[in-house]
């Protein structure tokens, strides 16, 4: 019997789904994660758009689906990747080596470093936080206070922070921030009755089936206000509140207002883990620094390098459902690839696996 092995790099949603999909075919999978926990960014999130289900439902389900064919290696980094015949040889940080028939990169995204938009004052003003910081507050105890310990009377959400912005080198839309802002606006309104909530946006990109309904609910049920205009700057008042300046582009006039808490919707950028693998494998990136698949429509999981595949947000910003669909597609492509490679290679990899397991 041929023992084929796939190495999946990244233990977030993409890696988890791909690992369980490949293992379901009876193929051995090593799932490598640099952190000491699985679940990636989603594991750090409280609730998800649009249904506001707990994020743990997603990660819990995906982890549960990993069968005995999957070996999980957390707290593990890759030192070296070499070609080994038609296979891959990976050297890990504990000097262990793995031989794989196919390699899947599922190294995800990093959140845009909001400090780079200095005019918004993140890291300078105490009451300017990111969407991820707010999500941590939700998870912690759901008690929203500003830095002065005050229950906010007015909260502002700034869309497109680090997205659609040539000044930070990111020309693309990060896809998930618009609906996340609306979700968080609803949650803040629910947690703090009477709190005025404002979203400052350029376009509202409610592309998902239920997103528009959530947007409408935010207006109808919670009275969330939407002001079309990109924030130009934020200032700190003496009491720690934040004065924001924006053009209300529908009124055609500049507008200023005070908020007690300003939330920056940080977008997605290529992760440091992806960059490291780009160096190790000398891969090409697109103009936005994401990994470049062979063809974004027809070969979105292929790289042009035999046995090397891509899944999830390492190639572009994606929502969770898009990531899961993408990962399943990658798993299928990997299975097709391994079936097409002759049985000789399988015999070799089987032997090597045995030596590796004996270590």
């Amino acid at each position, binding site marked *: 019997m041929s023992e084929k092995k796939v190495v999946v790099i990244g233990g977030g949603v993409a890696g988890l789904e791909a690992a369980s999909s490949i293992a379901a075919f009876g193929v051995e999978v090593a799932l490598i994660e640099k952190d000491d926990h699985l679940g990636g960014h989603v594991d750090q999130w409280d609730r998800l758009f649009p249904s506001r289900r707990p994020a743990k439902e997603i990660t819990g389900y995906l982890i549960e689906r990993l069968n005995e064919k999957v070996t999980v290696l957390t707290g593990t980094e890759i030192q070296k990747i070499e070609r080994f015949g038609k296979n891959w040889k990976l050297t890990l940080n504990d000097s262990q080596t793995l031989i794989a028939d196919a390699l899947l990169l599922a190294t995800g995204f990093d959140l845009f470093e909001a400090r780079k938009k200095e005019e918004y004052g993140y890291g300078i003003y105490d009451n300017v936080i990111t969407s991820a910081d707010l999500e941590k507050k939700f998870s912690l105890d759901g008690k929203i206070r500003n830095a002065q310990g005050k229950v906010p009377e007015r909260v502002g959400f700034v869309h497109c922070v680090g997205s659609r912005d040539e000044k930070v080198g990111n020309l693309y839309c990060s896809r998930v921030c618009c609906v996340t802002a609306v979700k968080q606006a609803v949650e803040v309104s629910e947690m703090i009755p009477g709190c005025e909530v404002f979203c400052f946006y350029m376009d509202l990109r409610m592309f998902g089936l239920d997103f528009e309904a959530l947007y409408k609910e935010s*207006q109808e049920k919670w009275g969330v*206000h939407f002001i079309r205009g990109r924030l130009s700057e934020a200032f700190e008042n003496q009491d720690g509140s934040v004065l924001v300046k924006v053009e*209300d582009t529908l*009124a055609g*006039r500049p*507008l200023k*207002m005070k908020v007690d808490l300003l939330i920056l919707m940080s977008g997605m950028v290529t992760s440091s883990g992806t960059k490291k693998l780009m160096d190790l494998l000398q891969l090409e990136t697109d103009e936005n620094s994401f990994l470049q698949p062979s063809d974004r429509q027809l070969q979105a999981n292929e790289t042009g390098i035999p046995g090397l595949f891509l899944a999830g947000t390492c190639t572009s910003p994606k929502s969770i459902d898009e990531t899961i669909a993408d990962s399943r597609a990658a798993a299928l492509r990997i299975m097709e690839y391994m079936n097409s490679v002759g049985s000789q290679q399988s015999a070799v990899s089987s032997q090597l696996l045995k030596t590796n397991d004996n270590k």
Partner: protein
Amino acid sequence: MPHFGYTISTDRQIDYDSNDKRVAKYLAEHEPSFMICISCGTCTATCSAGVFTTFSLREHIGNIKRGEIRNIKAEAEKCMLCGKCQLACPRGVNTRNVILNIQRAFEALGL
């Protein structure tokens, strides 16, 4: 008084904190669909009054929400209540009742 040729420009900035949001509050309470406007402009595009006057429901709803209500009372009187906007609105805003309630808000608030 001698005229030196100088003028003082008025501040065009919308000062949300000091603006009067009472009309917006009245409308949100009396015609809640006021809150679900997405500023698409379909109402204004179809408006017969808007062809000949400065009446723009889209613009006025936005201004009321920001507390910019200086000319709103006079503007609301330009509407003929024909209801075309209500047929066209993709969000189902009860536009005629919004306009009627703008007039009522000004009366009720003594503005």
